[in-house]
């Protein structure tokens, strides 16, 4: 109880911490993501994301963003420029739409956090044209957004909203195991994709978990 942060809003320091933690988690799981992608894709997901998030950390060292929105926009631009593969525009658009959703606000309450996640998910849908059940990032993002929206409506703290999102994203990522892919490189594999987790859904779950960790969820 004593260590739990029950802040009612999240600030720029949280956004920056989230990005730094994401870089660390992506680096730690680089090989796992590469192996998932090698099973059903072109094997570059871990490598590409690691390069993109490392570039974000390098930019953060040069300049601290002024607002959470500015941090997200910088992340968007960097991922789109450095990742190279499909994850670049997909995650980039997610961060870009999240930046637009939070605007100039210095503090994000639960409602705004849930709205940012929803805008990010909508961006991924718009860019990738995927739906739930097609073995993509969306299978992690959509349950995450649903859980976050419900938690915000229940009056939960931002950390609890993100914790709910992260838990749902992990379950969503696991739900891709038995699916046949309908989008992306894996769609060429047909039934051979069955039994493999979608790498984009897996990385989405990791990155949403770090958002909750940075907010102090479960501390």
């Amino acid at each position: 109880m004593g260590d739990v942060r029950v802040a009612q809003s999240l600030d720029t320091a949280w956004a920056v911490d989230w990005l730094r933690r994401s870089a660390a988690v992506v680096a730690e799981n680089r090989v796992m993501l590469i192996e998932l992608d090698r099973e059903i894709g072109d094997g570059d997901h871990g490598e590409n994301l690691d390069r993109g998030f490392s570039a974000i950390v390098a930019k953060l060292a040069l300049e601290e963003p002024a607002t959470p929105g500015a941090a997200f926009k910088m992340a968007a631009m960097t991922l789109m420029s450095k990742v190279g593969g499909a994850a670049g525009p997909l995650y980039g658009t997610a961060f870009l739409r999240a930046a637009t959703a939070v605007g100039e606000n210095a503090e994000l309450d639960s409602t705004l956090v849930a709205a940012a996640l929803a805008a990010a998910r909508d961006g991924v849908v718009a860019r990738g044209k995927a739906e739930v059940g097609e073995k993509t990032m969306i299978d992690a993002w959509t349950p995450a957004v649903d859980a976050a929206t419900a938690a915000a409506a229940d009056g939960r703290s931002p950390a609890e909203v993100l914790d709910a999102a992260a838990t749902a994203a992990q379950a969503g990522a696991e739900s891709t195991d038995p699916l046949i892919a309908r989008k992306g490189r894996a769609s060429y594999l047909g039934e051979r994709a069955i039994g493999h987790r979608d790498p984009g859904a897996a990385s989405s779950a990791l990155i949403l978990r770090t958002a909750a960790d940075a907010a102090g969820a479960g501390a």
Partner: protein
Amino acid sequence: MSVGLVIVSHSKQLADGVVELAAQMAQDVTLVAAGGTDDGGIGTSLEKVMTALGEADSGQGVLILTDLGSAVMTAESALEFLGNPDGMVMANAALVEGAIAAAVTAQGGASLDMVQKAAETALNPGGPTVLDLTSTAGVSVVETPAGADNAVNATMTLINPLGLHARPAAVLAGALGAMDVDIEINGVDGQSVMMLMTLGAGKGTDLVVSATGPDAERAVDLVRTEVENGFGEL
């Protein structure tokens, strides 16, 4: 000044190669390659695409052609970053054929709509062409199908040794593309460089030309002059 083209590919060599190929047939068109990642690897880069869009934009519009998956998404993201400007559009086209058709059409001074259409119909002979374009663009033009009673018709014989090969096809399609005309040459769209090349018309082949629209006379005269001069190759 003409419409500019941006070629987005996962591979730097592929984007550069498409630009090189298209430039041969469209010397005055700004063609910019945005291929590979920032460090020269396989992939696409928002920064490269945005820089290329800036270079290709002369105020007449920019058409973007892409290869696979994430190239499309990166190009869309670049447009989103720029606030989806009116003068920049993506072509849903085969990269090589579309780029050549678009470049030749741009060389003729055609509008962005026409250049986009040229790219998108490069692989589809029976597809909608100028007629469809003028109506969707909201331009009120009374069109009559080629071959109708008031069409301008002519038949001429190719006299240059190589016939209607790539360069003459580009010359004709480029010039005709800038005119307000619906023109068929041996049954194919005279404004499409790809279609003219598919005719494989060699020396001695008769070209049956039929044109309608405000520029019909001028268009047929242009074809006749070029054919009679052997496209400057005699």
